[in-house]
């Protein structure tokens, strides 16, 4: 992935070196999450529901991305309808086999599937 020379990160104008560190930090965080105990996979989905980064196989990724994207939009719409100043922070779906955690952002969606060992 080409590194941008100058750009914005979360709305702040950063210089080249700062942006590189920010980018490296995020990469590291994502790697740490993937390496954490029980984590099955991580997917980063953009605003249109297209997965841009994944650690799972293609078909599973596409399925998760499409379904969870819609669910997150619906959940967010619900929360904001009740109080427009509120916003969705994260969404957890606990199933028998594992737990799906979704953290929505303005433009992206981060999905992590974990098997909380018990």
């Amino acid at each position: 992935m080409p590194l941008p020379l100058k750009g914005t990160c979360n709305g702040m104008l950063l210089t080249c070196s700062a942006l590189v560190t920010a980018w490296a930090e995020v990469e590291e965080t994502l790697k740490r999450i993937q390496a954490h105990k029980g984590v099955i996979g991580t997917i980063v989905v953009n605003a249109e529901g297209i997965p841009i980064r994944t650690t799972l196989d293609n078909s599973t990724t596409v399925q998760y991305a499409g379904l969870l994207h819609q669910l997150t939009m619906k959940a967010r719409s619900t929360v904001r309808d009740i109080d427009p100043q509120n916003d969705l922070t994260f969404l957890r779906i606990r199933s028998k086999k594992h737990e799906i955690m979704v953290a929505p952002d303005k433009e992206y969606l981060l999905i992590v599937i974990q098997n909380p060992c018990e």
Partner: protein
Amino acid sequence: MSKTLLKPPDQLELTEAELKEEVTRILTANNPHAPQNIVRYSFKERAYKPISYVDQLAIHFSLDGNLLLRDSDEGRRQSAKIGLEPEVEETEVKEEGSKEDIPEAGEGEEPPPHSRKEQKLTNQFNFCERASQTFNNPVRERACQMEPPPRATFSATANQWEIYDAYVEELQKLEKSKEKEKQKPLVAKKEDKARGRKLTSLESQSDDVTKVTKAAKIVERMVNQNTFDDLAQDFKYFEDPADEYRDQEGTLLPLWKFQYDKAKRLAVTAICWNPKYKDLFAVGHGSYDFMKQSRGMLLLYTMKNPSFPEYIFNSESGIMCLDIHNDHPYLLVVGFYDGNVAIYNLKKSHSQPGYKSSAKSGKHTDPVWQVKWQKDDLDNNLNFFSISSDGRIVSWTLVKNELVHSDVIKLSVEGTTMEGPEGLQLQTIGCGTSFDFHKKIDYLFLVGTEEGKIYKCSKSYSSQFLDTFDAHHMAVDAVSWNPYHMKVFISCSSDWTVKIWDHTIKTPMFIFDLNSAVGDVAWAPYSSTIFAAVTTDGKAHVFDLSINKYEAICSQPVVAKKKNKITHVQFNPIYPIIIIGDDRGHVTCLKLSPNLRKMPKEKKGQEIQKGPEVEITKLDKLLNLVREPANKPKK
């Protein structure tokens, strides 16, 4: 009846001449009553024009008759309706038919059906269809197909929040335009535009992962929460029920263990809770071994993410102490082994300290053992104190982005003046190892030294101490004022003892022997009689003076390996947990069991008293028991 002429009373009386006068009357065909001045509006000339010819017909009487011509349409119609006439006709026709030849009688019969047929004709125009089929020309289709115009389906929802968002955007745009108006110079505008263009082009190019930072952080915490789910539940809800049976003793429940692999070989030299974010704490790493001095690290952990620190700072020299500002929870001051002090600003993303002292700006010549923030001075500059083994207590002020130092006190060992060369009197410099400032009395503070003495000092007196306590036989590792009681403080030392003092009395109130060098001691923030001490044999001791004046109510080995020494302990300001740092670089978090958190029991009938006064009175009672002059021997 008379035959005489009756003259009406108003008859004209005329003379005979007048009577004989001939009056001519002309008869014309003109209607005298017809109007002579009819005007009609002419659209051509756009004016009213008089009509030249006027109708002169005068109808004197008109009466519409009701006779109809039999053969007229109306006549026939009506006669058909009545039905009388045709019979008359028939008879007439029949008569005529009988007069003629007999075969014509048949004809006579025909006309009646004809007339009947004629009568049934409802078509008054006698319409008969005259149609003819023409040859239809063959139809040829001529069509051409084009590409359909590009279409896009647009759909949107109008929810409450979409409307709200639109309004907020509008507001922001207005504010931005107002700001731009204020910044008038054209050059700036051009720069803005250029920058704006660059930004947009770059933004569209980079499908950036950096925008997921916040989400990634949240997810990491969630993942950790899942893994350490039982610990999180314990932290929040578990209250050891066995404490009821344990007869005043309590336990420490181990919760999370914080470690960072790059700090594994460094000992924990300082820990401090953040005053604003109660789950965030700072850990300073360095080394107590003066032979093995290497780099240092400053890490900040949050209880929400036990597997990785939130902030990481590297430094060349080992960190010995740190403190977080109460009003600015993003400012940390750090003291290094090489004698420097530095201020780190968490808000900035640099990994280097914001401000650092240097040899020129008066750094210490020995390791800095403790730093503490003070209240901002009169010019609202940040201010902190540092103490070091070189015997100086220095006050540092951050003036205009630079650290300015001023020596407050120089510690000297009393009674040890030496004869130096040329008859100079040299004072041996004492080594300060710890200090603590009084919570209420601003200028009063305590200093612990390496010789085992504790000095009571004032900020305003730079050469003399207010008081001296012969506290310990070895270096004083920590001193701390009681958070509630104004006169009480505690000290601990490597001579295995912990002593509690009243600063007006020269001898300690309580002495506790813990069988091992005591690394650190800390008062509990919720009670004036509870404190915790940690020793180098890996044990943590918790004392509650209101329950047991001679022994700890909890003595528990906390760290796994026996070679692990515990270096520091801190109570969390609100949660019932303590963090303990050891010399392997690990920080362990433990929960205090209910017995260790006992509040004074209310007597029945009395109201529950709350507040710091209660704590003060509690401790006072204890001290009064102990304060009997020299009568009661204490261990």
